[in-house]
């Protein structure tokens, strides 16, 4: 295979082989360099020739007792395996399919070369800070943070409602007083009426110890309503001589 001769040239030509080795970025890079030496489109590359060149290179490096990174040896083993598969009569059952393995290797080489070229084409483009320049010290744009306040109509109205309620409640709390409930007043009045047979002023049925004026008013009110209610129930009779005259009450037993 003439590949060996071709490959010998660039490697031997350069000064120390060890430096050459270090200049490759891994086995794929080395393979790409060897493939380029075939001077054909990568799509037309002879994979078998490429494998031979790679294996020759590794053999030479070993003969010179050069330290080879493990991945170079792994690639060599893999390529030797691929070569043996490719040379064997075609086995349709073979897994993996050697043709596909070779195809993948070819794809990887093409792809790496494409990315390498793309990188060079990028670098060849006009670049900021070399070809184009921006303003070095722009004034900048001031940003004013303006607060926008949010408040719904409902919040506004319920706030006013709350204020109004608070004012009313505060007045009410001050005047809060003990009251006599209607039930209590009825029970009490009915009980007292049972003991008395004559007309009696309603006010005389009220408790005597009404020091708290507001409680007195409550007792008076409840007792009056209790008297009305007992009358309605037919348990009492009410009488009043004139407007604002004392109210008289009497038990009714019929």
């Amino acid at each position, binding site marked *: 295979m003439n590949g060996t001769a071709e490959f010998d040239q660039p490697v031997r030509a350069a000064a120390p082989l060890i430096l050459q080795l270090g200049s490759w970025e891994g086995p794929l890079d080395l393979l790409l360099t060897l493939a380029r030496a075939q001077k054909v489109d990568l799509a037309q590359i002879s994979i078998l020739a490429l494998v031979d060149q790679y294996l020759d290179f590794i053999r030479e490096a070993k003969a010179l007792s050069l330290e080879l990174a493990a991945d170079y040896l792994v690639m060599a083993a893999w390529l030797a395996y691929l070569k043996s598969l490719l040379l064997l009569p075609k086995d349709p059952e073979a897994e993996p399919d050697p043709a596909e393995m070779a195809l993948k290797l070819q794809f990887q080489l093409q792809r790496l070369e494409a990315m390498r070229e793309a990188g060079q084409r990028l670098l060849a483009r006009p670049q900021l800070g070399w070809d184009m320049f921006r303003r070095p010290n722009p004034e900048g744009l001031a940003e004013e943070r303006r607060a926008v306040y949010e408040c719904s109509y409902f919040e506004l109205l319920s706030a006013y*409602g709350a204020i109004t309620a608070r004012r009313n409640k505060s007045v009410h709390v001050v005047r809060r007083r003990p009251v006599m409930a209607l039930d209590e007043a009825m029970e009490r009045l009915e009980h007292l009426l049972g003991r008395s047979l004559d007309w009696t002023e309603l006010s005389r049925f009220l408790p005597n110890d009404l020091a708290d004026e507001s409680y007195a008013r409550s007792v008076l009110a409840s007792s009056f309503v209790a008297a009305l209610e007992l009358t309605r129930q037919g348990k009492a009779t009410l009488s009043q001589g004139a407007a604002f005259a004392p109210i008289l009450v009497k038990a009714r037993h019929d």
Partner: protein
Amino acid sequence: MIEGDDHALARALEAILFAAEVPLSLAELTRHVGERGDLVPTLRALAQSYAPRGINLVERGGRWQFQTAPDLGHHLRSNRETVKKLSRAAVETLAVIAYHEPVTRPEIEEIRGVAVSGGTIDVLMEAGWVRPAGRRETPGRPLQYATTPEFLAHFNLVSRRDLPGLADLKAAGLLDREPPRELPLPLGGREE
């Protein structure tokens, strides 16, 4: 745009002045473009071509520079709006002003039953909803506050008369259902 031979020179001058860190004198410009004769006519023509634009080329004390057109300063600030919720104190103060305007700060405090900090009214003025509305002609001449048209617009009101009355608020359940304070008690035997 400038035509002919001057075009290349004008382009170079534009780029140089744009990328310069400081305004440049004629000598400095010449150093960049090389000896090209008098640069002033080209600079003048360039300045004229920029005159209607938002960027102008100007000469100040013999140095040339690009700058933004002087009338566009307001565009160089942006307003980033941040939405803030009004504090409860602010909402209440706003409500009192709306219902009682024109109203003085002591009056607001009396109605709310709490002291009103100056910041609270400031916030309402910043929001554009409250404005000072003259002084009350009473001792101390206290400042009065009232709402603004923006206030009506924000709450979608045609006028302040659109604000619901106390009865409406009550019907809407916005008032506590405590009894009003002065309920006459016509039971007076004893008091009358």
